[in-house]
């Protein structure tokens, strides 16, 4: 009797080891990337003559002008963005999930995830700037402006335009993650129950489904929080400049001609880590308060049937996000074919294909590399995520183990210093900058997002399906392939599309690890965007946005085709 049990234990142990090993292989470069900033932050970087550990660079950092204000602005932007995005998505889901409006908005919003942050930020800037499209539309007829007014917009000191730009991008992200989790919830039943009890749509959803839904999107919410606290490209385009947010200043220091500024940059990257930590702690506090409020609402028994106004506002906000980005992209498109287009003309004075013709031929090779990187890294990441979740699920149904949390670290570190640390590692390993090393780094950045969007639906899948299959004598692998994966195909496709679009928009990792030898649409776009020509930005933003757009289109349409005979699978 004893033997088979110990054998079982052995198998379980081996399985656990494989799991740990996998997480280690993936986690090690991330740890090295962190070491790559921690060591220089404390003064250790032999190449620049730093061989002794010191706290000098932190003192230097503290002496930087306006460093506190820079840190706080970033923190506030992150919290405001996350609050705004969660509130909009939450209210909209509560108000409309299961209605016809919902599926219409769903198809409107999903493609937005495809638009790279920088492109969306440019789109917004092209719209709202004093010389932007919106003011051109009404000038000079309504405003009397023959020349753009001196409004400080974008780049306003309160960072409102930056928060707006981030919210328009984070709402689709959270919305899509929530969408992937939604089929696991008893939506119709809860709706019927709460309606029968006399609850309004919002309050009914909040007391019955929101806690379970929030649990599923929680990691994505933290990713949004960390991302918007540490974002660089959107901050450059829309954020306050005097002083800039901390991540933007780190980016400037890492690119400083004074090479010793890299010590300072590393110290600042650690500070940024602290800011991120503070943001997370504050968010935990907000979560606790929200839970108390929800508990109060539940126990008070209030039905809150008059919720038309907040519902309308959430629907308006989510449509406005879509409208702003679509209109902005249309304006980007108009600029890409514009000749001279002076203020206050609402349309270009002349149209020309010159920009496209000039840009397309050098764009082809970059497009191929971009596609190859995105397809491979997303596919690998999806495979790896399935493997990890499957093995983890077999070993411990309790959810995320500590070493899995390691994978989320790339989302918790400012990209710029983390990648600088990785670059040192890859070069010292004697690896040539090549397609494969860039692919490996893309994979590192893509995997967390894929895992993020897949983990929650994976865990929340009703276990009875698999129990039934196991009861019918199916093996673990058969259950995975013929029960779990088909049931989760929408979630898998969404995760793949998320990974694909993350890869498409990766700039710094591609540039630094590829030593600039691998050109992608993202590196080309950012290099050209530093030239500020709206026409060329228009071309690249359109190309960059159209790639993931295709992926999301497939992710949202394929289930409709695959399951045209299975109604419950299509929602």
């Amino acid at each position, binding site marked *: 009797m004893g033997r088979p049990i110990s054998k079982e234990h052995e198998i379980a142990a081996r399985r656990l080891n494989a799991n740990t090993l996998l997480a280690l292989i993936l986690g090690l470069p991330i740890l090295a990337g962190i070491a790559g900033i921690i060591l220089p932050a404390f003064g250790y970087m032999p190449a620049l003559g730093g061989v002794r550990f010191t706290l000098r660079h932190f003192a230097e950092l503290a002496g930087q002008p306006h460093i506190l204000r820079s840190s706080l602005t970033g923190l506030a932007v992150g919290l405001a963005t996350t609050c705004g995005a969660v509130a909009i998505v939450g209210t909209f889901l509560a108000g409309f999930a299961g209605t016809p409006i919902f599926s219409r908005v769903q198809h409107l919003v999903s493609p937005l995830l495809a638009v790279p942050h920088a492109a969306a930020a440019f789109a917004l800037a092209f719209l709202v700037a004093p010389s932007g499209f919106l003011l051109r539309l009404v000038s000079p007829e309504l405003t009397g402006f023959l020349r753009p007014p001196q409004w400080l917009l974008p780049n306003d000191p309160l960072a409102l335009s930056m928060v707006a730009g981030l919210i328009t991008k984070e709402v689709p992200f959270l919305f899509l993650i929530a969408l992937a989790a939604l089929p696991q919830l008893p939506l119709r039943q809860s709706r019927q129950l709460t309606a029968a009890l006399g609850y309004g749509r919002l309050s009914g959803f909040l007391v019955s489904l929101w806690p379970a839904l929030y649990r599923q999107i929680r990691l994505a919410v933290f990713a949004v929080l960390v991302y918007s606290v540490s974002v660089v490209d959107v901050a450059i385009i829309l954020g306050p400049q005097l002083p800039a947010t901390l991540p933007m200043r780190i980016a400037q220091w890492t690119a400083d001609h004074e090479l010793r500024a890299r010590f300072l940059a590393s110290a600042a990257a650690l500070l940024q880590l602290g800011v991120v930590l503070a943001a997370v702690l504050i968010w935990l506090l907000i979560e606790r308060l929200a839970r108390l409020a929800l508990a109060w609402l539940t126990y008070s028994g209030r039905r809150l049937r008059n919720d038309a106004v907040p519902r309308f506002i959430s629907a308006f906000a989510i449509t406005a996000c879509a409208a702003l980005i679509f209109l902005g992209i249309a304006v980007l498109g108009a600029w890409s074919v514009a000749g001279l287009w002076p203020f206050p003309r609402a349309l270009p004075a002349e149209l020309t294909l010159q920009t496209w013709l000039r840009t397309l031929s050098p764009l082809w090779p970059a497009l191929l590399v971009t596609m190859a990187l995105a397809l491979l890294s997303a596919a690998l990441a999806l495979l790896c995520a399935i493997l990890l979740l499957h093995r983890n699920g077999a070993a411990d149904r309790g959810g995320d183990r500590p070493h899995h949390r390691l994978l989320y670290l790339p989302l918790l570190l400012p990209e710029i210093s983390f990648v600088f640390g990785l670059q040192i590692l890859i070069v010292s390993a004697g690896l040539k900058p090549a397609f494969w090393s860039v692919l490996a780094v893309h994979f590192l950045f893509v995997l967390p997002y894929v895992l993020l969007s897949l983990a929650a639906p994976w865990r929340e899948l009703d276990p009875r399906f698999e129990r039934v299959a196991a009861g019918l004598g199916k093996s673990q692998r058969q259950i995975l392939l013929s029960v779990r994966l088909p049931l989760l195909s929408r979630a898998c496709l969404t995760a793949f599309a998320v990974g694909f679009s993350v890869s498409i928009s990766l700039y710094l990792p591609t540039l630094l690890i590829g*030593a600039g030898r691998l050109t992608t649409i993202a590196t080309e776009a950012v290099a050209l965007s530093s030239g500020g020509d709206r026409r060329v930005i228009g071309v690249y933003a359109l190309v960059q946005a159209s790639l993931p757009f295709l992926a999301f289109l497939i992710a949202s349409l394929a289930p409709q085709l695959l399951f045209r005979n299975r109604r419950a699978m299509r929602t």
Partner: protein
Amino acid sequence: MIGRTRKIIMAAMLALGLAGEASAADAGNWGAVVAEAKGQTVYFNAWGGSENINAYIRWAGGEVKSRYGVDVVHVKLDDTAKAVATVVAEKAAGKSDGGAVDLVWINGENFAAMKREGLLFGPDWATKLPNWRYVDHETKPTVLKDFTIPTEGLESPWGGAKLVFFHDSARTAKAELPDSAAELLNWAEANPGRFSYPQPPDFTGTSFLKQVLIALIGDKAKLQKPVDEATFATDAAPLFAYLDKLTPLLWRQGKAYPQNYPDMKQKLADGELDIIFAFNPAEASSAIANGELPQTVRSFVFSGGTLGNTHFLAIPYNATAKAGALVLADFLLSPEAQLRKQDPRIWGDPTVLALAKLSAEDRSAFENLDLGIATLKPDELGPALDEPHPDWMTRIEAEWIRRYGAAN
């Protein structure tokens, strides 16, 4: 026995050492360089923010491929410091050959930093290039001194640059234009919100600060030396007094700044700015040709002179394709490549060659270039002011950020 072993090891080391010497490209032995370069791929790290410059580099790459069998890959940077960062990271990892950067477009503080950290291929290769004989190093001192730092042949000149202002003659009459830093301040008082400069540490923005510093500093000789910390506050006082007055008159009252000079170009077209500037005298003409600026834009300079400098090509110490990089640098210095570069329809970047040293045919080709409607003739460009020591740039940038970095 032991002695013999030692001798063998010595011989082997010598042989290895010699082998190392032989593979390191020596510009003095040009035939060997060209032979070695054949089949190499040169990763040329250059700012990629301007499509006409990118097109020019593509052309040069094609020519070098067909003539010398050297492949050229343009690594498009948004900031040259990124290439420096790559070399630093490689040095940190002990990678002293097989580096990722073969040739880099560089000048000023990036060059100073790479030279100081010993990150450059040397000794003197630039003056041994075959086309060096055409270079005007007699009347263009900036060819040998990059922001007062002696180049010592560690970088090869590629093009000249001069600070030139642009305005739209349809909006701003020629008679109103300022002719000095002081007049510019008066003009800004009369036209608030219509002038600005790219936010330092942007290269062009800092150059504007240097232009004002040169005009206002008491003792100009000080600028040729590193900053004297003891007197810096007094030396820079006139500059910051000037900026204190100018800032509230800037675009957005100095609460935001343009990102870089192409951004200013866009803002001139939008009507947000009335006077802008760039480091390329042909910038306006090529922008008109591209439909970025209206036909009515014209150039002007200060009669007292504007900042002038030279930009260069350098090879990192650990470059993989040194021979190929030498061949490309030499080709870019050839009269043919320099002529094409100066054509405003292509790029419009002034040559570093002395017309007097060229063949009659090449000379007349240069003289017959149509520089474009908005470009000043060489004799209208006014005197060139020398770049200060890079130290000044660093200090002024830091001081600028301290004073104006939190305008909101």
